[in-house]
């Protein structure tokens, strides 16, 4: 089969943010009629690469060619004009306008003539590509899947010949996802080329011809999907080349917290927990691997006090938990490192002192309702010093700090404990190193190991298998809200864990 013409060529794109190399000489080619999957974990550099393509970021190095023509850098309109369309994860549609109006919005005047021609074109496109949606329906009344079709139609209407889909199935039900795949197959048959951004392995296997895997900003693999399998892709995605702290094996202590047969309801496309049972032991790091969106958030919310189980129960030091809230969890010695450090972990316009005492202002820094700001400031200074938080001083607004320094403050705050009881007994670390540079990663991980060595129970939730395998004494995998059995350190390989992450092992374990 002769190779089709190359329609898009990204050549050695590099983009750095401070110390973080978001893209490091990333190259990618896309041929006519082809679906290329861009695979990688959160923070691997997928979004940065697309932002460079669309001119939102200026690349530090590298060139882009669309249909053989070089693309002017830093101009958001250039890519659109060259025939590249993008469908974002979050749709940009006006709910009170009709489908047709939304499609024309921004390209032509709504009251100009030519509505008839526009309607014809939309109807023709939706017929050709199997994107059934009524042009006069109000977008606000459409389902999520239908809205996505409108977004795709919008791109096609603007004569896009290259379509970029950013995690398109994240919001879809399985049936809607299947319909989307049918559309994409039809579209490539008509000569459209597609970049499919995802971190879901089975979808990539189902729809993509080739697959480019990004990890820490670098291309770590470019493979034909026919010549590979899920386990190999998972191993590529999570890699194995970085030398980061590794915890030595160590005997575990008593069970501090037990999650006992806990289930939660599904939330849209995100599965709830399915009778999850998990023990957190003193002096042990329990790693929870899995692709995000498989129930980790629900489990973290339950352990952190933000939610209660719909069924099943939680026991803390052998006592069943009755009242449960973030405040109670803190007072019971559970420290949390949240997944979203910008929105959950800190308040951007508060200074470092205020952020340092966000959890303990009542228990440790006030008396009869009066704040002791002097003590709070001393506490913040101690964290800054003890955890090497690089900042001008405790009165700096925390939004001005880098992610790594922000995370160090959160870590210091968490390890100082939430109650009169000094150090925490349980640490819930949810994606603690996501988006950090390597130095900060090593620091945060070594602190978690040190906490374990002091006898703390650590639950480490991560998408990064390297991190999980390097740190955990025992590893569980989450998939579709189900929890795998615990595997002791060193008994599992990355491809084996990959199969559990993909959900295959659950089925075979079930069948057996």
């Amino acid at each position, binding site marked *: 089969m002769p190779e089709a013409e190359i329609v898009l060529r990204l050549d050695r794109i590099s983009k750095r943010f401070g110390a973080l190399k978001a893209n490091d000489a990333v190259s990618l080619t896309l041929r006519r009629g082809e679906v290329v999957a861009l695979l990688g974990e959160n923070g691997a550099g997928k979004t940065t690469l697309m932002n460079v393509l669309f001119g939102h970021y200026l690349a530090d190095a590298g060139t882009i060619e669309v249909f053989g023509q070089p693309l002017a850098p830093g*101009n958001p309109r250039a890519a659109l004009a060259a025939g590249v369309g993008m469908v974002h994860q979050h749709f940009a549609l006006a709910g009170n306008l009709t489908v047709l109006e939304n499609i024309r919005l921004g390209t032509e005047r709504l009251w100009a003539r030519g509505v008839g021609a526009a309607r014809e074109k939309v109807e023709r496109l939706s017929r050709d590509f199997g994107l059934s949606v009524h042009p006069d329906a109000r977008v606000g009344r459409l389902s999520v899947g239908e809205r996505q079709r409108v977004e795709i139609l919008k791109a096609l209407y603007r004569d896009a010949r290259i379509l970029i889909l950013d995690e398109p199935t994240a919001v879809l039900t399985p049936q809607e996802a299947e319909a989307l795949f049918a559309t994409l197959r039809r579209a490539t048959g008509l000569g459209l080329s597609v970049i499919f951004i995802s971190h879901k392995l089975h979808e990539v296997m189902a729809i993509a011809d080739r697959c480019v895997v990004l990890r820490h900003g670098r291309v770590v693999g470019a493979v034909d999907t026919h010549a590979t399998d899920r386990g190999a892709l998972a191993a590529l995605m999570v890699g194995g080349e970085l030398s980061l702290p590794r915890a030595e094996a160590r005997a575990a202590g008593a069970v501090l917290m037990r999650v006992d047969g806990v289930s939660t309801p599904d939330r849209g496309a995100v599965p709830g927990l399915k009778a999850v049972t998990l023990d957190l032991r003193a002096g042990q790091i329990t790693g929870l691997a899995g692709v995000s969106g498989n129930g980790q958030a629900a489990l973290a919310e339950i352990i*952190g*006090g*933000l939610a209660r189980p719909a069924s099943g129960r939680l026991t803390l030091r052998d006592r069943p938990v009755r009242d449960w*809230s*973030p*405040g*109670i*969890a*803190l007072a019971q010695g559970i420290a*949390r490192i*949240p997944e979203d450090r910008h*929105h*959950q*972990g*800190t*308040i*951007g*316009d*508060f200074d470092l002192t*205020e952020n340092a005492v*966000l*959890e303990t*202002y*009542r228990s440790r820094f*006030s008396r009869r*309702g*009066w*704040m002791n*700001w002097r003590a709070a400031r001393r506490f913040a200074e101690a964290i800054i010093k003890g955890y090497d938080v690089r900042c001008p001083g405790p009165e700096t607004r925390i939004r*001005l700090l880098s992610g790594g320094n922000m995370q160090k403050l959160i870590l210091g705050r968490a390890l100082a404990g*939430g109650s009169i009881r000094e150090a925490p007994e349980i640490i819930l670390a949810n994606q603690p190193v996501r988006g950090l540079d390597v130095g900060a990663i090593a620091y945060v991980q070594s602190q978690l190991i040190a906490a374990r060595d002091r006898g703390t129970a650590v639950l480490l939730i991560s998408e990064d298998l390297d991190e999980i395998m390097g740190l955990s004494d025992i590893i569980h995998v989450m998939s579709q809200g189900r929890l795998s059995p615990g595997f002791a350190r060193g008994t599992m390989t990355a491809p084996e864990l990959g199969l559990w992450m993909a959900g295959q092992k659950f089925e075979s374990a079930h069948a057996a």
Partner: protein
Amino acid sequence: MRLEPVANPSTARRLGLPALAIAATMVVAMGLALLAGASPLATLGQIAVGALGSKLAILETLNRATPLIFTGLAVAVAFRAKLWNIGAEAQLYAGAIVTVLLGTGALGGPLVLPVSALVAMLAGAALLLGPVLLKTRLGVDEVVTTLLLNFIMLLFVSYLLEGPMKDPMGMGWPKSQALIPEARLPRIVDGLRLHWGFALAILAAIGVWVIQTRTALGFEIRAVGQSPEAARFAGMPVNAVLVKTALLSGGLAALAGWSEVAGLKGLLSQDLSPGFGYTGIIVAMLALLHPLGVVVTAVFVAGIFVGSDAMSRAAGVPTYIADMLTAVALLCMVLAILLTKVRVVRG
């Protein structure tokens, strides 16, 4: 054209733009005077003289500022927690009704004033309790509920003044009986119209400032306003904080009604408040929600109103100019604040 955030606005930017906003307000004022056929500079001068030109004028301005300080504080406290209390007007009337009920003979002796102040605050707080519970329990938008309560309250006052609270000796006018002398706030200096309500308003401003900066509740209020998600994650009782904020805000707004009745008017009538509750929003926004700033902006806004009254008599420019000026000042200030945080970029 698009807006791009400025990470660390310079001092020049933070002080220069508000100054520019005030200058722009002056220019608009002169334009309005010109449209009305008067001399622009003379009109501005007359507003200034009318507001600050004599001892009497100054005291009148401070008197007018008193309810605005209270309503401004009420709004500033609530807005700090992103609790959008648009109902200070209704809470003001709740306070005024209670003051009249307790002050027309139901109570006597030296305790009348403190008791009526306290009960007035409770009434104002109670009035805001409904909307805030609807917000925390059912997610009902408090902008709508507090705004609509204003109209309900105005009609309720109208009913009271035509019915149960109507003064039998009032020659048929819709007004209440007058307060007994013990229920009146004394004047700060004999013979001058300024009453103790002004001093209490300043104390209230200092009190709110202390609460916001020195107490755990103040910390919670600011945290909930900045990021409810982070506050909840940190273990703060977000809903309880909102309820406490509402009680404080409603109580402060009610004190405006209390001080107007007990300090100035001596009775309840339908024209007790020419929109002090709404003007309080402008006062609070101009002060960037800072409680001590509220004192300054309340005096500024009061001065525009008092000065415009005087100017109108002398120059024949309609007093509506005062409303337009405060509105323009607010718009310019909001724009100035926005422009300290973002810059306009081409492309």
